[in-house]
């Protein structure tokens, strides 16, 4: 899922300072699961915005709402149910949601309520770690299912590098060297000879270096 975390309150207060009616809009997708922008976080942010405005003696009306997803046109269309009830939206979805509102609502001011961080998972409650970089050209079949693009500090395709010491990465003693993990895993799986294959120079165009990406599924379009 996409991992995000709420922006500092002072930053959100500052960006909404000129508005008198704000809609705090959550998303029931990834940001609900990672506790950054679901219904509960909407309630908290709305309360903090009201308190912040009251403290400064500003008039501010805050509405609360959430969409099933903010990354689909059909759900963005349901924003009509709050028609005229706001003059700005603070989206607590990931950056995709903010962009979708901006794309589909040309006259509506929309602000990000969270910082979108990475694609990751939760190994235990309250922790999230990056697992995928969305590079568009998956090599996990070659690396025992562990991603060197997302999890190697240098995104090396042929590792480990000389900075790998005792299974740890040179950037920090708490960071596992994913190439050591790949080696160990391939060995356990009886495929350690795969480590000898030299990966070719990578074409990064699929990773966004060729501009904004898009995919089309002809079978789904009518």
């Amino acid at each position: 899922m996409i991992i995000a975390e709420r922006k500092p309150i002072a930053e959100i207060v500052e960006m909404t300072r000129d508005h008198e009616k704000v809609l705090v809009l959550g998303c029931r997708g990834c940001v609900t699961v990672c506790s950054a922008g679901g219904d509960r976080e909407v309630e908290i942010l709305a309360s903090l915005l009201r308190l912040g405005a009251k403290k400064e003696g500003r008039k501010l009306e805050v509405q609360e709402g959430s969409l099933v997803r903010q990354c689909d046109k059909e759900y963005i269309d349901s924003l009509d149910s709050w028609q005229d009830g706001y003059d700005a939206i603070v989206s607590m979805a990931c950056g995709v949601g903010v962009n979708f509102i901006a794309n589909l609502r040309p006259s509506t001011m929309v602000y990000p309520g969270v910082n979108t961080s990475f694609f990751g998972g939760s190994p235990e409650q309250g922790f999230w770690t990056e697992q995928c970089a969305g590079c568009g050209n998956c090599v996990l079949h070659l690396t025992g299912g562990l991603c060197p693009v997302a999890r190697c500090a240098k995104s090396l395709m042929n590792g480990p590098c000389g900075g790998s010491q005792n299974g740890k990465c040179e950037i920090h003693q708490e960071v596992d060297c994913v190439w050591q993990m790949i080696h160990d895993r391939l060995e356990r799986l009886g495929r350690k000879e795969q480590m000898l294959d030299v990966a070719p120079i990578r074409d990064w165009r699929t990773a966004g270096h060729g501009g904004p990406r898009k995919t089309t599924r002809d079978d789904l379009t009518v």
Partner: protein
Amino acid sequence: MSDFNPNIRAFCCHYTSQQTCAEGSEGLKQDGFPESVSLFRVPCTGKIQVSTLLQAFEDGADAVYVVGCPAESCHNVKGSQRAAKRVGAVKQALSELDVESERIEMFHLERGFHPEFVAVAQEMDKKIKKLGPSPLKGESA
């Protein structure tokens, strides 16, 4: 600030607020429990959400505190630890809004009848009288 009578809301779990039940409001008053503190009894402090604590400030509280079981011996195992984390989150939010973070506190007390229950209320009352009204009420803006 001497005429300032604070509005303090205390959320207490079923077990740590037994003194309230045993003595009733009149008995507590005789023990020196400050009139500025309103008690809200909950089955477990682990049930209290961040939004509940913020709502208390929205409703005009000058301070809020939570009384739960000792961290390592909560009746519901981790309820009071969860409450302490949520109080910590509100402390952080108050700081970000440039409001004194000591306007919210967490206390871990033993179950049953204990003078500490009254003592923490007095401590909050004294502290908030010194701090003055909450800036979140917007009265000084």
